[in-house]
């Protein structure tokens, strides 16, 4: 790799102006690999300004908190001394509701927790339920699910990118990102029929096979999408304003990041190469060729770089999945869990009985429990299910990655300026639906 280093002059930064009243210029070196070489420390308070502390409330109804998050901040001047987050405004009791539903009936709930990654959640839940039922899914289903997961990773990262750009003051990348997101939603619509709340996996398979000609649409997307990523990259990655608003903010060291239980791009930006797809693989992810990007500084800028790289890697995975998509059935041939085709259910006695038993009673997994984790765009998403042999789980627990990531926000914002709280909060990529459940 070329080692040419580029220097970026930052004209506008949070540090403000110099003695002459001109904007301070902070040289920032960003090398080819995207590493920032000079890191500016957050500015120190003027000693004579230290005095009475102020209580300030952000949210719960504030566009920059990305949902109904409420932060109570104690400020010393403009520096955050203490941060007390409040969550729960969107608490719906999904885990409680799940105890009153059959396994396939829970899948709609998984759409509505992390609603930017609905297909990914469906897949995660179905994987968990299949482990509990002891089913191995078909090869074609695995590849289709990988496509779904990576497509939803791309939309989730695009929403993150767009909204973070708006938070920090860039509007154009938002439009570009949402345009691409719309293309994936069109593909979802063609295959699934729904856009946001997909509810598309079933225990043992999928709701439907892909329609004819759908793969061409996906191929066209993978061909076009990297160009847009490069365009966004060119506009903001070496942009002085962007670097000034993100570099050296909310730094987490690798040990701390692991200790705080961070996952996904948050932990990888801190320099920990932990990806569930690589380390505890599922859906044959170990056979796909992709890289896990890792940051070195653990700041907001690195989280941005990691997510940008993940957009490219996800495209790579989708390309490989299109190439290897095998023919064959999508659903497993096990009518204890998968509904027989409707035509057979009305003409064939045995199929009708299976249909009746499944709809009226629901499939029963054996007594047992499992914790299945997948790499969602936000991090390690785990479903812990306990079965007592009845058609409904005794306990269905969601391990929400952005919940654990958000719990580290007091550690990340303390000592930074109030305006940086917005950037740090944006970098966590929170979805309140998932945090409050």
């Amino acid at each position, binding site marked *: 790799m070329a080692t040419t280093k580029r220097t970026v002059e930052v004209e506008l930064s949070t540090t403000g102006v110099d003695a002459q009243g001109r904007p301070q210029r902070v040289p920032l070196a960003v090398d080819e690999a995207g590493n920032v070489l000079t890191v500016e420390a957050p500015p120190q308070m003027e000693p004579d300004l230290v005095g009475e502390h102020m209580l300030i409330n952000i949210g719960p109804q504030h566009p920059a908190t990305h949902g109904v998050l409420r932060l109570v901040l104690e400020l010393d001047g403009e520096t955050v001394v203490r941060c007390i987050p409040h969550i729960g405004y969107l608490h719906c009791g999904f885990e409680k509701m799940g105890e009153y539903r059959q396994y396939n009936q829970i899948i709609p709930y998984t759409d509505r927790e992390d609603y930017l990654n609905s297909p990914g959640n469906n897949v995660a839940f179905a994987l968990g339920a299949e482990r509990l039922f002891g089913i191995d899914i078909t090869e074609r289903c695995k590849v289709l699910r990988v496509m779904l997961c990576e497509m939803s990773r791309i939309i989730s990262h695009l929403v993150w990118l767009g909204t973070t750009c708006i938070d920090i003051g860039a509007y154009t990348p938002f439009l570009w990102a949402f345009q691409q997101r719309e293309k994936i939603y069109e593909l979802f619509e063609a295959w699934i029929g729904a856009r946001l709340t997909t509810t598309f996996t079933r225990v043992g398979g999928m709701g439907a096979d892909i329609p004819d000609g759908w793969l061409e649409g996906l191929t066209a997307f993978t061909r076009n999408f990297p160009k847009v990523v490069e365009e966004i990259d060119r506009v903001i990655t070496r942009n002085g304003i962007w670097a000034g608003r993100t570099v050296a903010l909310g730094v987490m060291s690798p040990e701390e990041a692991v200790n705080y239980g961070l996952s996904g791009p948050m932990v990888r930006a801190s320099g920990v190469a932990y990806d569930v797809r690589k380390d505890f693989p599922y859906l044959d992810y170990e056979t796909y060729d992709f890289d896990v990007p890792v940051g070195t500084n653990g700041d907001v800028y690195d989280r941005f770089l990691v997510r940008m790289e993940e957009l490219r890697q996800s495209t790579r995975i989708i390309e490989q999945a299109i190439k290897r998509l095998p023919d064959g059935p999508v659903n497993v041939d096990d009518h204890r869990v998968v509904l027989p085709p409707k035509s057979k259910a009305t003409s064939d006695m045995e199929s009708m009985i299976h249909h009746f038993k499944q709809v009226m009673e629901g499939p029963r997994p054996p007594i047992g*429990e499992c914790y299945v984790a997948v790499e969602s765009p936000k991090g390690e998403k785990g479903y812990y299910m306990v079965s007592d042999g009845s058609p409904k789980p005794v306990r269905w627990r969601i391990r929400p990655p952005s919940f654990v990531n958000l719990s580290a926000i007091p550690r990340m914002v303390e000592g930074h300026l109030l305006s940086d709280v917005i950037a740090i909060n944006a970098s966590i990529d929170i979805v309140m639906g998932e945090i409050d459940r």
Partner: protein
Amino acid sequence: MSNDPGSPTFTPVVAGSAIASGDAAASPASRVNVAHRGGEANQSADALKQTFGAAVRRVDVVWGETTVYIELARVHDAIKWLHDDASQRYDYLSDVTAVEFRDLEQPIEVVWHLRSLPYRRFIRIKAQIEKGQKLEAPSVWDIYRGADWLERECYDMFGIRFVGHPDLRRLLMWEQYKEGYPLRKDFPARGRFSRSEQLRQALAANPEARYSKDELSIADAFEDLPEDMKRRLRSGERVGE
């Protein structure tokens, strides 16, 4: 050890770095044909048995995942040992939660899901709280900072008090919530109070009471509040204490 973020000598922490190259865990694979019961237990389970003896009540392997039941009084020591011991290095806390069974005679289980990133291992630690016992479990906040909200949520939903947690208060439900613990099996899905009572309480809530006493004291506002509001704030805080 100077491994500061941003320094030129920075080396990333890589999951699986402690695994010997010949080990099967060096190239993990998606699991197929997992047996329901039996199967090979995580080697940490044996190590736990050797170190903690009779405190390890039982080791189960269900769907290829190892569950170790540990006596409630020793579970903190066991998790600390798993975290610190050089041959285990369980440095990542995935989840803290609890399970109550429909059979109300069965004990409530507190569940810790731990990962060892350097060895790529996963283990489930369980401690049982017999019915009628005080709902208390040791907090692992001093080992994993990530336990903070996970334990608070578990307290909020099950009423299990995590002894040693620095700030155990309700998380998802509001601090003045009086209906109990939603994920307990004796809690009806509709809630304990009628809809009209819930609505009445929601409308009667004072927005000022949404700040806790701690927060108002930051702004020195607590002393200026009327007496009845002070009382409500005091009583609303630290539910269950």
